């Protein structure tokens, strides 16, 4: 019970209300029409008749409409439109770099320099921001009876929850988030391949990561693997405000969160050069992923989560 309560705290009512204002309110209004929002592009044989097609050798004989044969003396196969909910798989990078910034990063850091959130003054780590995002997305999907799957990984896949649409499943996801510990270095490529092997049903794959893999090409290959398997792929590239603007004052001993490598430098001096290199890094992903028809979304922890979701929903309009 305690876990449930803990899990629910991710469903920040403010966030949800804001999301509702934009898109979810519409979902509530058209409650019964919700399954129609996600028409499958694939034809099946389950629910609703679609059309007849002339029999061809190899077709299952049980789908032959004998009534039509009786009337026309020809074999017709009866086709149905499969109306199914979306399978969404959320993949979370839980490497050590995602745990930052945190209040423990710098004891003496000025208040003004701390990453700010809308209603909380303590620095919001990328991982925490990701939790909010995942919870919001899961809730949103669950409301739509979409199946939500979840996996998290660092240099390997730690847990994989298959896609389900039940409300209890969403709670499982939230509890799983609570139990996540960040320890290891970022290696995204290999886990993506592993997950791709597991996903048998095509759907929407959402990767949430800071993409600090030493080998970006492996990350891109992993994402392309998913794309080739027929999944729609969305990448939420999550970064902290510190990383984006690199605005520090005075001399700082930077310690790498994953490798413990230390560099003492004066940030003002290297700021321009840092930003140039950092933007190159971002642009590399943006360009390459766009070429592979993968949606790339740069999310900043300082921007409200509802805006990030709004941006996501806007981008998914074409999907709907």
């Amino acid at each position: 019970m305690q876990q449930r309560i803990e899990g629910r705290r991710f469903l920040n009512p403010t966030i949800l209300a804001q999301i509702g204002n934009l898109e979810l309110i519409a979902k509530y209004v058209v409650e019964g029409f919700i399954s129609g929002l996600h028409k499958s592009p694939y034809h099946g044989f389950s629910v609703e008749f679609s059309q007849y097609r002339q029999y061809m050798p190899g077709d299952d004989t049980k789908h032959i409409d004998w009534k039509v044969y009786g009337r026309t003396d020809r074999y017709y196969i009866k086709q149905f439109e499969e109306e199914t909910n979306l399978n969404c798989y959320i993949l979370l990078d839980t490497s050590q770099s995602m745990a930052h910034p945190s209040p423990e990063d710098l004891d003496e850091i000025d208040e003004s320099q701390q990453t700010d959130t809308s209603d909380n003054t303590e620095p919001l780590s990328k991982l925490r921001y990701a939790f909010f995002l995942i919870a919001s997305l899961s809730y949103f999907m669950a409301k739509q009876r979409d199946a939500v799957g979840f996996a998290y990984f660092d240099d390997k896949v730690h847990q994989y929850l298959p896609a389900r649409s039940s409300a209890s499943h969403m709670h499982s996801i939230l509890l799983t988030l609570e139990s996540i510990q960040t320890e290891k270095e970022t290696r995204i490529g290999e886990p993506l391949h592993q997950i791709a092997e597991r996903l048998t049903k095509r759907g929407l794959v959402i990767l949430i990561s800071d993409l600090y893999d030493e080998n970006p090409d492996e990350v891109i290959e992993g994402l392309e693997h998913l794309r080739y398997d027929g999944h729609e792929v969305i990448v939420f590239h999550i970064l902290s405000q510190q990383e984006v603007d690199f605005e520090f004052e005075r001399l700082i001993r930077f310690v790498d969160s994953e490798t413990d490598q230390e560099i003492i430098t004066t940030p003002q001096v290297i700021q321009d050069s840092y930003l140039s290199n950092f933007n190159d890094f971002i642009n590399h992903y943006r360009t390459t992923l766009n070429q592979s028809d993968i949606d790339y979304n740069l999310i900043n922890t300082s921007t409200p989560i509802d805006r990030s979701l709004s941006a996501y929903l806007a981008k998914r309009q074409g999907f709907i």
Partner: protein
Amino acid sequence: MGFLVGAFAIAGAIGASIPLVIHLLNRERARRLVFSTVRFIQMSHQTNVQRHRLKRLLLLLMRILMLILLGLAFARPYFAEDPASAPELGGVRNAVIILDTSYSMQYNDVFAQAQNEAIKRLDSLESADAVALILSADKVRRILPIDSEHNHIRTAIENAELTNYTTDYLDAIQTADEILKAVSVGQKQIYLIADLQKSGWDNFLDTDRLSPDVDIEFVNVTDEQSVNRAITDINVPPVVLLEQKDTELVARVHNYSTERVENLPVSLFIDDAKVETTQLDIEPSDSSDATFKVKIDLQTESAHTGWVEIDSDALEIDNRQYFTVQSMKSIKVHCVNGERIRSDIKDETFFLTRALKDTGNEGAPIDYTESTKFPSEDVIQRYDVLILANVSGFTAAEAERVKSYVNSGGGLIITVGDQVDSNIYQQHLGGIDNPLLPCTFMQASGDAIGKETFQVIASVEYRHPIFMPFSNPNHGDFAKGRFYRYFQSVPTTDSTVIAAYDDGNPAIVEKIYGNGRVLCYTSTIDREWNDLPIHGVYLPFLHETIKYLALKQAGQIPDYRVGDGVEYSGSQESAGKEVAVFDPDEKETRFNLSEQGNLFFENSENPGIYSIHKSGEKPHFFVVNVDTVESDLTPRNPEELTSMLVGTTETDRTPTELTPEVVKKYKEDVESNQSISTFLLLAVFALAITEMFLANRV
């Protein structure tokens, strides 16, 4: 290195620590920040941070340096030796450079070497040192007073010109010593840059020693084996007569080298035309005479100029000697016979006539005439020489005529005898106010009849032109003549006794009267009172006397040397008139004659022929030659000279007293001249500008 105001240096050093302290106090403690990844920081860190660190370090150093330099600038630093051991104590080393400009320095490029050596000595001095310059030659000396402005001295050395004068080292050294005496402190040094020839030291006296605190360095610029030849003397007859066939001119050439000279061409020029060339062999360090026996083709009775020259050598100026010569057809002599006894040996002019008439080619061509009466006013002016031989007396008019004749340039010989009335002579020709008589006749002395006692001419002024030919041994002995009787006489104040008897009474007395001369012979011209006429010297003596009086201008030719003052005597009538003097380079200078019609010309700086032109008269020539004492280039040993001039040993020298005032002034002088403070302030300014630029650069 020292400081005049040391406190500022300390303040600067302390001040320099201020930026360092600020830097250390402001140094940031690096705070630890765990960051997602340092990958991008690392990519940017290396070059930027290193550059930034370098810039900050540079700025720190510049700020420290600025404060140090500022402190140093106000401390007024200087570089100098410890005053206790500094030779230039007193702020300056005092040096006097003596540069020899005598004509011996014209030898090859000796003078250029000397100038270089002088510049070297000047360059060896510090800028604070004081230096004086003496351009030294006899008579002409240029002195630049002691000063620390070296550029003036340098310019003076570079522009120094050689003179045609001889050397006088001692005078220059004494002048330098005087200059250094006026300096109270500091090392005192004389640099003598010269050829150190022996002749420059001939007049050394013990009193010429240098002051005890003065050092001298001799810089000898002469060649070890200098070779020089010079015409040291020239003997040209004062007159050349137009009809004279073999005029003898003698030039003495000296060989100053250690090698024999063979076939040295010696040439004679008259009126710019070469007359004859002969050749000479001269032993080392010896002289040889070149004799020219020529018939000089002189067309007119006037003054002529010429020179004798030898082939060129390294010292050109002494290779030529100039002369002037007067040409004259014959000498017109008139004798007033006071004791005429025709065709008798007792005739007053018996010996005189034979000595002067029809002498053929020997001796001077004389046109001799005789009378017993005074010539008239017009006639008397035709004669070159008038002889009053034992003339008893004359009227006042005749006396005036004679005076006028002598005053206008005539020559007068007065001989005495038993006819002479000394009172009349004294009355008309003597007196107090400018008498014509060279001496006052007292009374006749001696027995010309008994001839038991006699006097001889015991004293002869052989430097006088009349006696010069007799100056050498075996060239005539006046002492052979016996003088039994003569007039005792007292020479006037402005006359000269050129021969005297052994009892001291004058035998021949000369006086210059106006433009003429008077010779008084205090015995008879015939054998009545003496037997000189039967001796060999009688005829040449008369001839020399006639020539001397007739050619008084030629006979008066003085031996002008470079720098001598030349006195020109014009007539009374030409007083105040303008004359033009042309020097050897034909450069004209105009003068006005004095009230007495005289001119004193001083600009005889160059050897050669000068001429004085006066309107309506023929030009008057005079020549100026170099003094060949300078031609001997043999140098003195510098060490010998040092011991001669310095004398005392080094330990005897008086050290400069090291008072605090002296040390302070020394330091101030050095600091002032070095101006290090100014440069330091400029450096601070430049650093401040650079620091500002660098600090504001992103």
